[in-house]
């Protein structure tokens, strides 16, 4: 087991390095010259060259990439002399448009994205797994058909449409919820909670629908397994057959998918955050794309990749706990 863990972590570092290299290369090749952006209006070619030299943009790709990696590990300084800016480790870059390090910008917004992701995840897991189980138990009945119809709806409705409909119904018409506004948790926890209700629902609906289908299909598959026949032939009560023999194999694949989905969302729920004006990582990414703030876009890309890669490893490790076949092989 420790050897397995070390191996997985080493592989994870390798993948993250490759992700960094690939992302850096894409932005290096495709992006407009950062020096031009830094320089602003009334710029002369001499001034641009000066900035390029100052920021190290005139050096070869590999030198720049290694400097970037060095910044991730130990922090770095952009420029020299009076105009130099510090970027503490882990330095994901510096936004000259916002005069802030990308790491700081992400640090301010990550809690919002995490709150949205955690709340939505709880909601979709509960709703998805429970309705999937109900669908499997009631397979072929009208309950199952209604659930199937609902999941189809949940999967097809776009987030922004659902967000607008919910706002109109819950806020404008019924006035059950206040219009979402950023309120810190410490200031008014109740208000803070109400603000997140709609984003949670909007984000959770699609996932809940997908999880309903996944759970239903897995449970129905598991019920066909020969070891369920063995459990019944042993004389076990249906309750035990379900709890001990059906649920665990049926829900194991859900863990995998959940790990991936949740990790992906930590990199920001772009549409939901934008529609509700929540200042999370996703909205920051959208804003940065509009402003063409390259370091921020790259930073968010790397962050999202980081979460996905780490999420993968976490799922692998969790799997060794829940599936003995993987555990022993590990």
């Amino acid at each position, binding site marked *: 087991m420790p050897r397995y863990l070390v191996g997985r972590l080493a592989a994870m570092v390798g993948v993250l390095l490759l992700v960094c290299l690939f992302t850096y290369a894409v932005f290096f090749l495709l992006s407009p010259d950062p020096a031009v952006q830094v320089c602003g209006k009334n710029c002369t070619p001499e001034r641009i060259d000066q900035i390029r030299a100052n920021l190290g943009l005139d050096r070869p790709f590999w030198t720049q990439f290694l400097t970037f990696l060095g910044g991730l590990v130990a922090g770095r300084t952009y420029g020299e002399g009076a105009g130099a800016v510090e970027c503490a480790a882990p330095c994901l870059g510096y936004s000259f448009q916002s005069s802030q390090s990308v790491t700081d910008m992400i640090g301010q917004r990550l809690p919002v994205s995490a709150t949205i992701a955690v709340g939505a995840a709880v909601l979709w897991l509960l709703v998805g797994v429970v309705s999937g189980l109900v669908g499997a138990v009631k397979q072929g009945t009208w309950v199952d058909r209604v659930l199937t119809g609902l999941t189809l709806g949940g999967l097809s409705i776009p987030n922004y449409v659902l967000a607008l409909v919910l706002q109109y119904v819950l806020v404008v018409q019924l006035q059950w919820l206040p219009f979402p506004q950023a309120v810190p948790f410490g200031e008014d926890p109740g208000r803070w909670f109400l603000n997140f209700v709609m984003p949670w629902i909007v984000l959770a609906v699609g996932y809940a629908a997908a999880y309903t289908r996944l759970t239903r299909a897995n449970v129905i598959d598991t019920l066909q397994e020969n*070891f369920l026949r063995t459990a019944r032939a*042993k004389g076990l009560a249906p309750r035990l057959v379900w709890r001990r023999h059906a649920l665990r194999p049926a829900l194991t694949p859900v863990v995998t998918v959940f790990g991936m989905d949740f990790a992906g969302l930590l990199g920001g729920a772009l549409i939901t955050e934008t529609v509700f004006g929540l200042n999370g990582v996703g909205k920051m990414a959208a804003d940065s794309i509009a402003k063409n703030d390259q370091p921020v876009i790259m930073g968010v890309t790397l962050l999202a990749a980081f979460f996905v890669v780490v999420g993968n490893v976490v799922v692998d490790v969790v799997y060794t706990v829940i599936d003995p076949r993987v555990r022993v092989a590990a």
Partner: protein
Amino acid sequence: MSATQRTDASAFLDVRDLTVSFPTSTGHTDVVSHLDLTLDAGGALGVVGESGSGKSLTSLAIMGLLPPSAKRAGRVLLGGDDLTAMSEPQLRRIRGDRVAMVFQDPLSSLNPYYTVGAQIEEAYCSHRRGVTRRQARTVAVAAMERVHIKDAARRVDDYPHQFSGGMRQRVMIAMALSTEPELLIADEPTTALDVTVQAQILDLLQEIRRDTGLALVLITHDLAVVSELAEQVVVMRRGECVERGPVEAIFSDPQHAYTRDLLDAVPRIDDEIAALRPVGATGGRA
């Protein structure tokens, strides 16, 4: 006709007029029809037939484990108790306790998520009130030793995938034996195993029968298996019994054309090789 032969009222297992049918687009289709089986306490009955002849459904019908869409008619008496008249909770007390089953594919028949010990203990605990975990574990280890699994005290904590095919089937048999059943229904117990392992499992079943006096219903398509283990044999085809009787009599002097076809289909080492004939080509329909 032997298929309608009178059943013995004193038999330990007495299946009378068993019919299993499934709904189809044109009504119900019988997959087992009007089948009678009898087995004395401690006896061994082989049920043979090609795939689709209704053998396995017969075993599930005896246990009351048919899929929900199946319809069952007829009576199943075990030691005088009518299993077909019992409620589901009453049947559960019989399943795994008085009647145990062993299935064809031991890997998929064992739950991959639990140790073999846990699965044997579960079978035992569900029929014995108030046993401690330690007692159950002792029973599991003893049952594994009983089926000659080496180093049982250690292997009891292994998972099914850590066993070879033959060892898994031994685990299944150990699980079945843990409650000391009166009847073991073995549904193709050796079909998924390779030949040398098959022989070992058959020897084991034979030994257990000899030592415990367990009655055995052996369901198989393999005539060699029947000849080795069973005393009585029922030949099934398309859900019906076409011939029944003592093994020696049926094998030496088959009355029904289908039985003759089945026997002829077994390759013999001392035979001249003739062209193979499809089974049932001689019009073996009963």
